[in-house]
């Protein structure tokens, strides 16, 4: 079980959090303008990266805030944590 450093509460056990999957998939501002393919891309298609993934977590049994995490999915090491709206750290790109 990971320890996740909630940017609002500090380090807590993973069981307090829920995962929201890949981050930075922005909901299209004008969905009606999209083709079925483009909409499906937003809705379902995921990078599902093995390696460094930018993802969303929610401190669901804590402050209930959503935030972003950089995690290596090949070893579950968390490399960075940042708030929603903040720029993702560049050194992991």
């Amino acid at each position, binding site marked *: 079980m990971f320890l996740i450093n909630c940017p609002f509460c500090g380090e807590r056990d993973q069981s307090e959090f829920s995962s929201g999957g890949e981050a930075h998939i922005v909901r299209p501002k004008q969905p009606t303008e999209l083709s079925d393919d483009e909409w*499906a*891309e937003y809705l379902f298609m*995921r990078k*599902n990266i*093995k390696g460094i993934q930018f993802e969303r977590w929610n401190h669901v049994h804590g402050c209930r805030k959503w935030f972003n995490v950089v995690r290596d999915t090949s070893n579950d090491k968390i490399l960075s944590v940042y708030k929603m709206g903040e720029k993702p750290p560049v050194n992991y790109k």
Partner: protein
Amino acid sequence: MKNKYSLFSLIKNAFSQHENWQQAWGNPEPKKEYDAIIVGGGGHGLATAYYLAKKHNLKNIAVLEKGWIGGGNTGRNTTIIRSNYLWDASAGLYDHALKLWENLSQELNYNVMFSQRGVMNLAHNLQDVRDLKRRTHANRLNGIDAVWLNTEEVKKFCPIINTSPHIRYPVLGGTLQRRAGTARHDAVAWGYARGASDMGVDIIQNCEVKGIKRNRDRVEGLETTKGFIKTNKIGVVAAGHSSVIANMAGLKLPLESKPLQALVSEPVKPIIDTVVMSNAVHAYVSQSDKGELVIGAGTDSYVSYTQRGSHNIVEETLKAILELYPIFSRMKMLRQWGGIVDICPDASPIISKTNIKGLYFNCGWGTGGFKATPGSGDLFAHTIANDEPHKLNAAFNLNRFVSGDLVDEHGAAAVAH
């Protein structure tokens, strides 16, 4: 078959102290070119190669496996086999597989220990009852043997279940498929490998795919740790790593790879002679031929390729087990492990062409792919050989995520295992 297995061959070999057995499958180095390459040497991949060779007269085939065959989810799952799915498309697919299972040991001349001990799904609330009855009715009309059992019948069929009305979520009934059961997981991979190898398929272990060579919209070959291999048909059956291979071809798939854990107890004398699954009190259990209780439950919620999950899942699973089987409290967990399961948004698989010519994907089996192994291999082989899906896997195409025609097996609360 050059090396037929039977009681007679065992006796014969006993006289030579078993020193004259032949290799079950070969260990070749890759050729420069193949007519078709299957990426992934699990049960599904090996079955695909087997049926390609057997039914589609393709002989120059290779299976590439980055580790050892059957080492992924084939060798890590809880081996439940059933076909009592809700939707017609799923029922068609899984019952096709079940029919192949029923003759698989003879087909492969390899005893896969397919044990039709029955699989029972329990209902614990009124919506469970509606959902399971709906499924039972659909199964019956689809020709799949499924019967509804009331609580007393559940108890009679599996007496160790706690059917007291006073537990937190009492058992309100269940649905039973008697033809369902379990099989010996490793044997499935080994049996298909032996059968395929016998027909000339090259099974190449410790060979990892590093890249897919494309010429515009068609594939030309694979970059591997054993060099470049030319081919114009690539069938990817890489389970948890499907997205990794897809990314090499510039494709994204509607998949997330998540940890799924299982555990076994120490071996004990026969105590449960069927498979019992429960969705609301989330756990499933059967007993292996060695006597171990084989137990599993749901996945973790996050993407991970570590083959490890979180401890709390194990704890929750055993909590559910002790709620339904309080007699197991003093049993001991012998071994726990994890696999990586690739999950589609609708909990149904993908057996499909892609928009790249010659590139086919068989993935998204989530937590329940083992049961489909023979059917999946057969239908994927058909799809690769004909460049068109078989009618039984037509619904499991990639386009359904665009058009919205999902095969949503979540809907009926069918535990997908």
